[in-house]
């Protein structure tokens, strides 16, 4: 079973579950002595990591689970009936792919100065400007993740006013080659230290650095293909071979 006992309760994660498929129904049975497949746990899993629990698209059609019925038929087994298979006009196979965007470096800056924290957006804007002066507008990417503000949720973060006494700024610089990526990230990080805002009392030092350098990270990739392709033969993209293994 996909995801093993995620469809059972109590939560385990790696215990065996047996699925039995017949023309009439699907039965899901937990094998672990302490686990059960219940209506709630099995139906709950129908939602897991999917946009919608009712429709599952596969090559050649769609499984419509809108009218599925879930029943507890013994202590450890839930039975599901009622899915409808809706054949598609043509067979389509899902394709996924990613492409390299560039080399990546990471800079880490800590901020404790209350004024800098309050004006962190302007500080970051200043740092970006410094990179722009040197490298222009295009040909690289520079991202700021401000932990303590919205580093995790980004634009979805509902809390707009922060009361953090410390912020951690992770600077992510991406460019076609390592040297440029390093330089961009270095300037983008360092300039947090030197940001000139009207009321900054010090000369330099509104940020603290964990390391003096910026750190090489894994290259950056982005999803480039998330499509389906029509095929005449469902197996044409999946050649199979028979071979004999030596014993």
């Amino acid at each position, binding site marked *: 079973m996909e995801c093993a006992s*995620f469809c059972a309760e109590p939560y385990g994660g790696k215990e065996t579950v047996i699925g039995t498929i017949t023309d009439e129904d699907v039965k899901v049975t937990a094998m672990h002595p302490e686990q059960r497949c219940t209506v709630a746990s099995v139906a709950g899993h129908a*939602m897991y990591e*999917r946009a919608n629990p009712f429709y599952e698209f596969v090559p050649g059609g769609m499984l419509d689970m809108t009218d599925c019925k879930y029943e507890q038929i013994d202590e450890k087994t839930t039975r599901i009936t009622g899915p409808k298979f809706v054949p598609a006009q043509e067979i389509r196979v899902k394709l996924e792919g990613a492409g390299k965007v560039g080399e990546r470096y990471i800079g880490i800056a800590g901020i404790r100065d209350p004024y800098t924290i309050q004006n962190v957006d302007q500080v970051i804007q200043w740092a970006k400007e410094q990179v722009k002066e040197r490298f222009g507008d295009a040909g690289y990417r520079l991202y700021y993740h401000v932990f303590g503000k919205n580093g995790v949720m980004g634009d979805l973060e509902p809390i707009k006013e922060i009361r953090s006494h410390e912020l951690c700024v992770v600077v992510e610089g991406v460019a076609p080659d390592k040297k440029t990526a390093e330089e961009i990230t270095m300037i983008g990080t360092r300039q947090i230290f030197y940001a000139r805002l009207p009321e900054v009392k010090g000369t330099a030092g509104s940020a603290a650095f964990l390391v003096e350098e910026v750190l090489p990270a894994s290259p950056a990739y982005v999803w480039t293909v998330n499509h389906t392709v029509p095929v005449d033969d469902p197996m044409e993209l999946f050649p199979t071979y028979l071979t004999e293994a030596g014993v």
Partner: protein
Amino acid sequence: MKTVKLVDLAKTIRSKNAGVDKITFDIIFREKEDYELVKNSGVISKENIAKLYGIDESRISDFVAFDPACAIKFTIYRTRPSGSPGNGDIFGGRPKVCRKAGGLRALQVCGRKAGFADRPGAV
């Protein structure tokens, strides 16, 4: 009006990737009556979810009440695919919501972060 936190009613509140460009949210209740209460209150709606996250309703791709699981589920589009440079949450496991009757209140509800590979239907 009595105010109840969603975390006190729900058994599971989770968010996960659903494919490369969506994050899906599941709010699962242990008791059918709690589920019905929240479902019928209309507090968790497309409109309120959009308001809570400050997004346009068109960014919500799916919104369903799923009776067999006693669950409310909604899915939003990411602004860029998971794992892209600049993306702060590769697994989509962090944005959670909390409900208060009479208005949505944003809270980070503690949830398990599964460390699974970044692909649909992982494990």
